[in-house]
């Protein structure tokens, strides 16, 4: 009867406190389940615009059904409509250039980056099922299919997660497989050839295998951290069929010709993602850091912070800031010199170049009084710029901006309603 005799001391309180926190933390998620509705419909529209370049309109609708046994079924239908201009990869110079490509043609004068106009649409259908297996295991499976004018994708994912140590730790492992096909308008050009070389008209296969593992841990009632690792192997046609590389004279750096780009047939990508979610009194702070590296020599760091401020009347405001920096892939070049043999691979795609970007944005979520459902509005501004001279720059010729800054704006309007 005398507790003093029991060799427990204050550990009892610690254990009870932890058990209480765990119960409250886990119940916060499911306690509302009896009141919440079985069906949720979410609709959103994304508007994406780059200055003088791509514009994307992306409406999407997602339906989720919660079954009595805890299974969750979701289906999503999306459409992307893209118009605008995309950089061809050709180098900016002081010379007037004319560049043709299968997707359109353009002429660029002055020192602007050559671009090609395009218009494309993409349809996506995504189906997911999540089911508990007993009390501590969860299985998820998903399938998706997408189609656009010159690309199709069919894939599936599976994931298993387990709660351990009284649900304080969750571990998960999963995998995915995509079977894609590329069939460029006007055929697939031979890589690194002038005038597109030999063109093939069959579908170029691309296969993507992904493996992920993750661990998350509840540290305190308010704080959860997680670490996720992924490895993706891509095989097949990984080249951008419409992108080109400029060949310049070795002395003045004057463009004299363009060749199609060429990339290796395999790419192994790896990433590590660390996240932290901290509940303050009312607000929530989300922090993530991601390190990415692949066997093309590209490395990137992403740091992202979001802060959710709870306002009265079920309104929230969530400012968002992100920094991104990437080093150029080994095959990235601003242009090839005419006095040197062609390398095995080359691309001037800016997405493989030395990039930095900063994103500022905010999301606001609110309800309209006496109306069902919840609205969200998200606006983001992205400023992207290159780091010329750190990779593959040809330091000759008159000064031109090889990698001009890019301004991107996105606006997402969303609505979700349960029934």
């Amino acid at each position, binding site marked *: 009867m005398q*507790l*003093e005799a029991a060799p427990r001391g204050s550990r*009892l309180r610690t254990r009870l406190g932890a*058990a209480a926190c765990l*119960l409250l933390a886990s119940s916060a998620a499911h*306690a509302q389940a009896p009141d919440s509705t079985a069906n949720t419909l979410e609709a959103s529209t994304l508007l994406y615009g780059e200055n003088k370049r791509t514009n994307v309109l992306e409406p999407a609708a997602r339906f989720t059904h919660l079954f009595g046994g805890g299974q969750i079924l979701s289906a999503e239908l999306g459409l992307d409509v893209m118009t605008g201009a995309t950089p061809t990869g050709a180098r900016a110079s002081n010379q007037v250039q004319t560049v043709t490509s299968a997707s359109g043609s353009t002429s660029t004068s002055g020192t602007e980056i050559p671009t090609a106009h395009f218009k494309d649409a993409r349809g996506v259908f995504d189906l997911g099922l999540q089911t508990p297996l007993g*009390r501590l295991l969860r299985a998820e499976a998903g399938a998706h299919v997408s189609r656009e004018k010159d690309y199709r994708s069919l894939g599936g994912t599976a994931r298993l997660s387990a709660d351990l140590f009284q649900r304080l730790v969750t571990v998960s492992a999963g995998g995915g497989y995509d079977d894609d096909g590329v069939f460029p308008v006007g055929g697939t050009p031979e890589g690194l050839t002038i005038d597109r070389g030999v063109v093939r008209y069959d579908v170029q296969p691309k296969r993507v295998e992904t493996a992920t593992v993750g661990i998350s841990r509840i540290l305190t009632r308010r704080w959860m951290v997680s670490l996720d690792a992924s490895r993706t192997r891509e095989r097949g046609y990984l080249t951008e069929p419409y992108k080109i590389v400029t060949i310049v004279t070795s002395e003045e750096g004057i463009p004299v010709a363009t060749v199609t780009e060429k990339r290796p047939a395999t790419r192994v990508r790896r990433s590590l993602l660390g996240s932290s979610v901290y509940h303050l009194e009312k607000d929530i702070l989300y922090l993530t850091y991601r390190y990415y590296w692949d066997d093309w020599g590209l490395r990137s760091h992403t740091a992202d912070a979001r802060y959710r401020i709870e306002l009265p009347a079920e309104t929230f405001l969530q400012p968002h800031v992100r920094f991104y920096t990437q080093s150029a892939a080994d095959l990235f070049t601003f242009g090839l010199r005419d006095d040197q043999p062609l390398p095995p691979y080359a691309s001037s795609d800016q997405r493989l170049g030395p990039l930095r970007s900063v994103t500022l944005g905010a999301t606001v979520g609110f309800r309209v009084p006496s109306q069902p459902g919840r609205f969200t509005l998200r606006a983001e501004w992205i400023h992207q710029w290159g780091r010329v001279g750190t990779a593959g720059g040809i330091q000759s010729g008159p000064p031109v901006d090889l990698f001009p800054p890019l301004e991107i704006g996105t606006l997402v309007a969303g609505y979700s309603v349960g029934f």
Partner: protein
Amino acid sequence: MPPARAARPPRPEHEDAPALERVDDYWIGRFTAMASPCEVLVDGDDRDEALAACSAARLEALRIEAKFSRYRDDNIVHRIQHACGRPVEVDAETAGLLDYAARCWTESDGRFDVTSGALRRVWTFDGGDRVPDAASLRHALARVGWRRVSWRPPVLTMPEGMEIDLGGIGKEYAVDRAAGEAAARVRSAFLVNFGGDLIASGPRRGGRPWIVGVDDPERTGTAALYRIELTRGALATSGDARRFVRHGGRRLGHILDPSTGWPVEGAPRSVTVLAATCLEAGTLATLACLMGPSAEAFLREQNVEFRIA
């Protein structure tokens, strides 16, 4: 327990919205749930905000009461009670509470037992002198004991005739959950008090604390023993302030020892514990009472802030 609680008439349970009243510079919403007077104090000026907090807290209290009350025939507790020894699969929230109850049972060497309902029914703590006879005590004790229950989450199998009573942790759990619901809707500091088990979200404007009075066990509802200044955290009181029985010239509180079937002797009249969550505070206060005369030593060992009367 706070001064504002004294001598208020309980309000009908079917009320659609809590009654909101302006007191000094804060709002106070009152309602009845879990057979207790409940109130939510919001330290702000915005009436809509206060109403949103009170309504959310009330709905959560009523939801938990409906789900875990022993006096309904449409909930999980009723299903467990009437399973006649057959296994019952429970939902995640109930499983969480049962996990917690199992942990309390282990930590208290079997003193804290959610299956002691049968025992409780043979005792009447109305301040009188009726004690159960040995036969009915034996009969009740035969139907008490978490060790007789098979708890393999999410499946609970309980011998026929046994009862489960989550009331010992349900109210504190409801306070924490209701505060969570309120916190999602207000930015002002608030305090949730369900029948004396309470939690404060943070200091009042200007850094002022909430002032909580602790009931005098001898003069319930009319006098406060002392005041506690609370800025953040939870406070729960356990004791025999209102429920006791007289036997052999002694006053026995309503905290029963499931090993003997008798009230714990020498327990303090009133134990108030401060902790981060109401669940933790309430469990520690109850465990302290179960320790009888060594309640104070137990609490000291836990390195927890407490008051004993």
